[in-house]
């Protein structure tokens, strides 16, 4: 027994509320307010985990986010949670990571005995023979830390909050609280955040007094002054990233089981009062459990009433450990203070033995530290070793904001260099030590009077304590990644002397703690070994996040349909009531077919009946973009491959839109309503992109007063009536216009009314049969659809899903852009060469139709592909193949393929090399290794004369 809970004290715990949880199957007693680490220490659990590589036993090092060792998997929460920041809860189940069966008795501990053969980066030097794959599974199984529960599901979506403020203060220690108060006093709106559960920073456990009051009182008063004035304080909230334009990301932890919350904060000014972190000291086996940060030991004593040992050695290179020595002595421990400095020491606390000018050379012990040997050979028996290797200002956020650091020889730390716009650094992060210095530092930027330190003042005396090349034993630099001083020396020997190479070669600083305790020691040693100064050696790039952030915080509510909402038809409910099976097409949820468990049969049936009588189809998703204005005709001429200005009002024309690279971008019908008004109809999935292109050309080339463009797609529903009986069906309804073919011929548009609303009736056809597209206000479409269905009963009308429509259009050889064309298809490949050959005016993509590749003889061209009637359809995606010398090569592929119910045979479309000139030729096809033969035909397999348009 060495660590124990004292009977009194502990500012963070509530002794009236005991609780128990389990760690590695062992029952642990704790109080509300304890962190898991505090409770483990109070229960004298020395070994809390195993290291990443050598499976060395490791104990609690720190008391906060810098913790490299004490990671635990918490059931229901996730892997790799820091025991130093996670609160103990009743019934919580924690398991140590990377240990089997548990941290105290890890089966893989033997690996440490082979450490000399597996130094940093050893894996690059071996396992090449016979093959890395032979070794990888075992290496992988040994790597990793905690375990993911594959059955875990998110309890609820994480919140995400946007916030604006004048001043964001990161860190609610003495500097941050003061900065926040001053900013508030100056009339600014303030957001103050701190990653700990409570404000105060070092004031929580360090001696001090402010404005004549105890620190605790000053903290409370400062905070209530802030929040009372309407400013916001977020505890348990980590500012983890500063991004472009000084957007700051926060992760807020909740204590009620909710997922963490992501805050996106847009402050006018950022004050980083992020404090400093204590470094370890380099000596052999400085990673043994029971060796911890001196400051952390003070936190555990004063906040959790845990005295971490009875016979304690404190080793330091600076003044901050003296208060720790005094406090632990007062708490009944026997303390020996080893100060590597010979001179200018602070006065010795009462009852503390001080050994000046001495250092620890090595620690001894099996699964916890039992003794230390000093550099003069003295051996001291201990149950706990506390170390303070100096303080590293926490400048991660400053670095993320691309702030440059400047090395301070005097303080042996990196401090902020040139300022970054909108960001100030204050307090210990800026190198201040005593409260007086901290307050003076904060006040420098303002006119308001700062608080006055009236209690004990810390002093900042320090000498460097860097690892030295060639030192005996294994001096641990990065605890979590298992990097020793020898590894750093090895890297330097092998020319990995860039600090970024050192990091990657040894993995120093790449663990979950991102090297908060280890980076400076590593680069100082590298500097020494490579004969450079620390300033010359430099630091690695700071990257977000400051501490690991739950992925759920970033995802927020974006899951399922909210990932990318589907668009829905105005008549969706009617289709559902009719038994439609929906699928997503181009972002829209549309009926694939209606009714029946047998999809194939339902689709065939719809396609067959559509040719026999009449079909109803909901085509509302079709793009309807209006082009209006004095230059509208010139505009559509430029936009389309085909000449469109010759189109007469009231008529429709099919055409292509090209990209500037000549490739067919979209196809569709252009309607001319009157001299200056057109409707561009485009493919469902291209509406947004076509609209954007039209706007771009309008603004870039034609001007605002020449053309106006309006996307009316979602305003109008379009219902199609197609088939031999379509005219008769429509004649039974009162549509307010003449259906006579002389008045409304194929490719004409007329205006009528339905139930008082404007109805546009276009005689255009995607089925090859006589067709009428009826467009009406989207919110009145339901009545029209019901009327059509009612009227359709007399004609055996069928409702078409999209799949059956695909068959009908393929029978006619009509293409679907992106399915029957690819990213190289030009209009001449689709048999439309006229405009290319004849047009004299410019249009989008024109010049690209005359490049070398556009005029190449071996282009893929649209064809039909026929197989024998008794064979199954070709597989879409099957390729035509050609033996070209020793090589097999593709000569095109099947783009669409169906069984045609009206022709009672398979039909297919494809893009085949020189296809247009090869009709009648039989070619070899290959699909997933299977070979077949097909005959090249014209694309149109049904009613090539087009008689049915007017049938």
């Amino acid at each position, binding site marked *: 027994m060495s660590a124990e809970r004292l009977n009194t004290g502990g500012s963070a715990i509530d002794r009236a509320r005991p609780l128990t949880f389990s760690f590695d199957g062992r029952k642990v007693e704790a109080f509300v307010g304890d962190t898991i680490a505090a409770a483990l220490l109070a229960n004298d659990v020395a070994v809390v985990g195993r290291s990443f590589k050598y499976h060395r036993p490791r104990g609690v090092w720190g008391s906060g986010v810098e913790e490299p060792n004490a990671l635990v998997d918490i059931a229901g929460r*996730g*892997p*790799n949670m820091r025991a130093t920041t996670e609160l103990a809860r009743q019934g919580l189940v924690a398991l140590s990571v990377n240990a089997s069966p548990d941290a105290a008795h890890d089966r893989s501990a033997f690996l440490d005995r082979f450490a*000399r*053969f*597996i130094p940093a980066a050893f*894996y*690059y*030097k*071996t*396992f*090449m023979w016979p093959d*890395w*794959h032979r070794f*990888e599974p075992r290496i*992988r199984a040994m*790597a*990793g*830390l905690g*375990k993911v*529960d*594959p059955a*875990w*599901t*998110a309890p609820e979506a994480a919140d995400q909050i946007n916030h604006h403020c004048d001043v964001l203060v990161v860190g609610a220690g003495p500097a941050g609280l003061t900065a926040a108060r001053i900013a508030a006093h100056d009339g600014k709106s303030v957001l103050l955040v701190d990653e700990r559960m409570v404000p105060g920073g070092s004031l929580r456990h360090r001696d001090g007094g402010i404005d004549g009051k105890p620190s605790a009182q000053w903290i409370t008063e400062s905070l209530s002054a802030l929040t009372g004035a309407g400013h916001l304080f977020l505890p348990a909230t980590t500012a983890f990233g500063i991004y*472009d334009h000084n957007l700051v*990301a926060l992760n807020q932890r909740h204590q009620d089981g909710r997922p963490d919350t*992501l805050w996106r904060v847009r402050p006018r000014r950022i004050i980083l009062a992020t404090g400093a972190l204590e470094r370890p000291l380099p000596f052999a086996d400085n990673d043994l459990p029971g060796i911890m940060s001196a400051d952390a030991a003070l936190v555990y004593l004063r906040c959790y009433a845990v005295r971490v040992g009875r016979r304690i050695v404190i080793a330091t290179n600076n003044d901050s450990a003296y208060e720790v020595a005094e406090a632990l002595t007062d708490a009944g421990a026997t303390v020996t203070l080893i100060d590597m400095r010979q001179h200018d020491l602070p006065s010795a606390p009462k009852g503390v033995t001080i050994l000046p000018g001495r250092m620890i050379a090595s620690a001894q012990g099996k699964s916890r530290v039992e003794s230390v040997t000093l550099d003069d050979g003295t051996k001291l028996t201990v149950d706990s070793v506390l170390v303070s290797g100096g303080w590293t200002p926490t400048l991660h956020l400053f670095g993320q904001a691309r702030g440059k650091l400047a090395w301070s020889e005097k303080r042996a730390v990196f401090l902020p260099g040139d300022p970054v716009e909108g960001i100030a650094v204050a307090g210990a992060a800026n190198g201040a030590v005593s409260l007086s210095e901290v307050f003076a530092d904060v006040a420098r930027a303002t006119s308001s009077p700062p608080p006055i330190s009236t209690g004990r003042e810390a002093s900042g005396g320090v000498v460097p304590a860097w690892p030295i090349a060639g030192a005996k034993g294994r001096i641990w630099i990065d605890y979590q990644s298992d990097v020793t001083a020898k590894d750093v020396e090895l890297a330097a020997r*092998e*020319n990995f002397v860039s600090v*970024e*190479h050192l990091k*990657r*070669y040894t993995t120093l600083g790449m663990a*979950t703690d*991102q090297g908060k305790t280890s980076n400076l020691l590593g680069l100082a040693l590298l500097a020494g070994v490579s004969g450079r100064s620390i300033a010359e050696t430099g630091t690695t*790039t700071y*990257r*977000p996040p400051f501490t*690991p952030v*739950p*992925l759920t915080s970033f995802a*927020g509510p974006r899951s*399922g349909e909210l*990932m990318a909402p589907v668009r829905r038809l105005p008549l969706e409910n009617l289709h559902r009531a009719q038994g439609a099976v929906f699928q*997503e097409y181009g972002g829209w949820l549309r009926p694939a077919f209606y009714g029946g468990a047998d999809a194939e049969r339902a689709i065939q049936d719809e396609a067959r009946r559509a040719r026999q009588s009449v079909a109803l189809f909901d085509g509302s998703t079709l793009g309807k973009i209006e082009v209006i204005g004095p230059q509208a005709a010139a505009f559509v001429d430029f936009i389309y491959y085909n000449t469109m200005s010759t189109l007469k009002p009231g008529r429709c024309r099919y055409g292509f839109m090209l990209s500037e*690279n000549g490739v067919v971008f979209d196809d569709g019908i252009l309607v001319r309503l009157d001299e200056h008004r057109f409707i561009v109809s485009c493919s469902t999935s291209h509406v947004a992109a076509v609209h954007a292109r039209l706007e771009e050309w309008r603004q870039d080339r034609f001007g605002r007063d020449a053309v106006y463009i309006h996307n009316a797609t979602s305003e109008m529903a379009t219902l199609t009536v197609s088939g031999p009986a379509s005219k008769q069906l429509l004649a039974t309804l009162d549509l307010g216009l003449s259906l006579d073919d002389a008045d409304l011929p194929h490719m004409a548009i007329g205006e009528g009314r339905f139930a008082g609303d404007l109805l546009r009736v276009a005689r255009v056809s995607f089925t090859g049969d006589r067709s009428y597209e009826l467009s009406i206000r989207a919110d009145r479409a339901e009545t029209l659809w019901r009327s059509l269905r009612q009227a359709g009963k007399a004609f055996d009308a069928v409702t078409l899903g999209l799949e059956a429509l695909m068959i009908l259009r393929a029978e006619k050889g009509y293409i679907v852009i992106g*399915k029957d064309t690819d*990213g*190289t298809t030009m209009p001449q490949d689709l048999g439309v060469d006229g405009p290319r050959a004849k047009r004299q005016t410019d249009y989008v993509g024109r010049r690209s139709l005359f490049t*070398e*590749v556009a005029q190449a003889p071996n282009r893929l061209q649209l064809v039909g592909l026929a197989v024998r009637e008794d064979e199954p359809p070709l597989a879409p*995606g099957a*390729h035509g193949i050609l033996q070209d010398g020793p090589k*097999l090569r*593709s000569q095109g*592929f099947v783009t669409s393929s169906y069984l045609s119910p009206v022709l009672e045979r398979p039909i297919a479309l494809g893009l085949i090399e020189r296809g247009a000139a090869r009709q009648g030729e039989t070619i070899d096809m*290959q*699909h*997933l290794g299977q070979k077949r033969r097909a005959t090249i035909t014209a694309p149109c397999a049904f009613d090539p004369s087009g008689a049915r348009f007017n049938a």
Partner: protein
Amino acid sequence: MTRRYSAFSLFKEGLAGQTGWEPAWRSPSPRKSYDAIIIGGGGHGLATAYYLAKTHGVTNVAVLEKGWIGGGNTGRNTTVVRSNYYYPESVALYGLAHRLYEGLGQDLNYNVMLSQRGMISLCHSAIEMEIAARTVNAMQISGIDAELYSVDDVRRVAPIYNFSAQARYPVFGGVWQGRAGTARHDAVAWGYARAASGLGVDIIQNCEVTDFIIADGRCRGVVTTRGEMRAERIGMAVAGHSSVLAAKAGFHLPINSYALQACVSEPVKPILDTVVLSPGTGVYVSQSDKGEMVIGGALDRIPSYGQRGNLPTLEGVISGLLEMFPAFGQLKLMRQWAGIVDVVPDSSPIIGESPLPGLFLNCGWGTGGFKAIPAGGTLLAHLLATGKHNDISRPFDLDRFVTGRLIDEAAGSGIAH
């Protein structure tokens, strides 16, 4: 001193305290003149130097690196190696790279940890399955391994994927390449550097090219922060910074530079044994040997040279990942970063002589340069040694933007090329 890497040498050095290892590569002072100079000490530049020395016997070569070798996109990518391409030209190029990767560890005497754990590119609809079939058939015809996977096949290789019917992007199947996988990115750079240095190549770090020496219409050398160096053949392999050097040489390239972000989770025990790409979410993920989830997504939307991650893209990528693997909601993000990639209209690389004679290009790899390193090096080395294309590099010449013979894989591959 120990030079050769093996289990035995590691053991021997273990007994001696690992003190006998030679520097992995030399850091000599730059000379005034070389037979060839390669600008850019990333994977492509170092590989070029290696193949120049090994294949063509040209060893009087310098690799000039602005910062530290492997510090650009080589050290910032998501380490996927694959060759599942649609067009025969691409298959020839990436197939060459893939084959060289398969022997690279032994060739370089450096374990690059090629892990051929397979990659599944998912399909989320029936029409995507048709396109996938088109792709798989094209690859099989070109002689590259590829299979069309059913949902059940996908379930077998990625059992923790979200197969729920409620998923935003349901799984219909996918394209499987079994030989695909990952490799250790840093090791590729270091392995090539060590092998090239061993053959006599000078690797010069902290050496930024500030200008070209041009005489009689030819590139004759470079001006650098470490002095002038002359060579009759100069290659550049500087990815996202290609346009910057091109401007110094007096020409434009068909390149826009964008940040491509990636991130890793904390390390966990093995849970994902393959590389998974979802075109719906635009996200791909694999688990590194260390146990981290290595996560990539689409390009940033804003042209940039700032090698810095941002929030909007990250949020999109992570929400996509959790849609694919809900259980990863337990994980935490450990690190986020960005590389600057050289995006070309057809997303295929540019290999060949530049408009400035004597200066040769290896650029335009966009988001997919890592997997091509051995081929990029082989082809640029061939150009530098012979002054001519070989059959594989010919289609990727800059002149394709004039002839229109673009090699646009957009139809055949998802975002992860």
